[in-house]
């Protein structure tokens, strides 16, 4: 009932008859009502004006209100509730995250994996209407989280990513293939894989280029992100004396990643630090704009009933009062 609109608002002009009607009611009451033809009026000043006399005109007011309500009811008041249904053409995204041991390198703070996880979560948070899956790979690949719209779970699953749960290595092909497998049956218009890695393909049974071919066949765009600074990166080693750091040359097969991206219509990005990575995610976010069609329709419910009831009650009340408290003679 928050929004009242009238189906026939022109009928509200009928409210203009209220003043003349009121005038007529009062005049008629004075003029045409029967009067007791009495002998004199000398007693007039002796009698006091009582509340009944004073309130007598409220009968007309009640009548007028009833008429007003009838007019309002006639104009068909309708309550509208806007129902908008967003017709979202979501994008299906698979985030393929490298969780190999090299991701623990601390050229990003606190390390590559944690930085990636954090930024991936932010990315996920920003894409409310997309289905997103998470695939983790190192020496092998597995699905951390299938395509889902439930971003809460998604973020949780991303947080749970850990290095070292599976065989170490970098199976780019496997990771890509698992991702493709996750997304290929999706009927979303736009299918995207974000492949995040920091190494060279050195494990797995599927060639990354083969995988990219498959991706191309399915019409999946693959954005590839190479993570790692140029040059050396501090890499922690566990020794009996605690964690020690060793600088390791960063090796990213940039050519391969570029090729995969180009072939599938995606883009290759190189993230040399955390801010850059963040910028990359933002860029991908922009590139993969979700098409949102908002269909809003109004639902109207007829609301004349309460008006009619009120009018009826007022009329009855007037009648009742006229016959009881404000009974007049003759």
């Amino acid at each position, binding site marked *: 009932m928050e929004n009242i609109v009238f189906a026939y608002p022109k009928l509200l002009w009928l409210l203009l008859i209220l003043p003349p009607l009121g005038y007529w009611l009062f005049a008629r009451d004075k003029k045409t009502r029967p009067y007791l033809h009495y*002998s004199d009026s000398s007693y007039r000043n002796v009698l006091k004006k009582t509340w009944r006399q004073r309130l*007598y005109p409220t009968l007309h007011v009640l009548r007028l209100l009833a008429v007003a309500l009838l007019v309002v009811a006639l104009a068909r008041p309708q309550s509208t509730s806007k129902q908008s249904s967003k017709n979202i053409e979501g994008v299906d995204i698979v985030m393929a995250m490298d969780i190999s041991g090299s991701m623990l390198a601390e050229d990003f703070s606190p390390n590559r994996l944690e930085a990636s996880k954090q930024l991936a979560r932010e990315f996920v948070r920003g894409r409310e209407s997309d289905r997103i899956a998470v695939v983790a790979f190192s020496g092998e690949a597995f699905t951390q989280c299938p395509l889902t719209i439930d971003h809460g779970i998604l973020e949780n699953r991303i947080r749970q990513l850990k290095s070292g749960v599976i065989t170490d290595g970098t199976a780019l092909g496997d990771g890509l293939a698992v991702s493709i497998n996750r997304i290929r049956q999706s009927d979303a218009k736009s299918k995207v894989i974000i492949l995040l890695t920091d190494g060279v393909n050195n494990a797995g049974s599927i060639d990354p280029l083969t995988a990219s071919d498959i991706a191309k066949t399915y019409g999946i765009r693959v954005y590839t992100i190479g993570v790692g600074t140029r040059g050396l990166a501090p890499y922690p080693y566990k020794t009996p004396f605690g964690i020690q750091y060793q600088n390791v040359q960063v090796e990213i097969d940039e050519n391969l990643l570029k090729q995969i991206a180009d072939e599938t219509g995606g883009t290759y990005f190189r993230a040399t630090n955390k801010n850059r990575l963040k910028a990359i995610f933002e860029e991908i976010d922009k590139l993969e704009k979700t098409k949102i069609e908002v269909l809003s329709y109004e639902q109207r419910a007829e609301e004349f009933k309460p008006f009619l009831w009120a009018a009826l009650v007022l009329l009855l009340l007037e009648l009742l009062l006229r016959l009881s408290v404000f009974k007049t003679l003759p």
Partner: protein
Amino acid sequence: METSELLKKVRKIEIKTKALSRQIFSGQYHSAFKGRGMAFSEVREYQYGDDVRFIDWKVTARFNHPYVKVFEEERELTVMLLVDVSASGEFGSGTDKKGGSKRESISEIAAILAFSAAQNNDKVGAIFFSSEVEKYIPPQKGRTHLLHIIRELVNFEPKHPGTDIGQALKFLRNVQKRKSSAFVLSDFMDSRYEDALKIAGKAHEIVALQVYDPLERELPDWGLVRMHDNETGEEFMIDTASKANREAFAKFRAEEHKNFDTLMNKYGIVHTSISTQEDYVKPLITMFSKL
């Protein structure tokens, strides 16, 4: 009113009033209205026991035999009916078989008085008045004249709604130089007639008959009542559902009535109040017995 209907009514009034007038005036009438002194009738021979004062000396001298003048007490008198035909008379609560309007009651009482007077062979005249004198019927004798008056009583349509008793009394004094019995039949809803009453009361024997309706003395609980003043045409609403109002009204009316009584007593005018709802015979008899 059609003539046949009128005649029927006149007949009815005649029958009703013949009996009534006998009842009312039996025995009292003669003494009630004294004749206008002695009028010379004839001369006759003096007889033993006659008052020597009445000997007509001129005739005695002519006939050389004592003659006395014989006087007759003049029984014949004039009855004037001052009939109020103002609009206030149209009111009548008529809750009863008897209850007509005040005007009807007045007409009936006037008719009775006219018949009674005619029976006594008196001259009857009438003045119809409202705020002005509407019609004057000079006093005359005879049945035709009587019927004329009754026809007017029943049929008269006043031109003015108001009441001015003073005007009527003044008019009476102007047209009726000889002493008469004047019956003022009105509801006396007028307050400015005291002076005229005083003056007319000296010249005539005035009898005031006030006709009222019970609803003029007290108001019942009728809720809101739209009132129309017949005389002034004022229209307003009063609340009779309020007990205070009803009491105030009754008190006001009682006071008015008391003032009427006081005024009439002050000038020694015989008066009575007759309700439209009750039989007017009794109050009339009571009043005439007081004369």
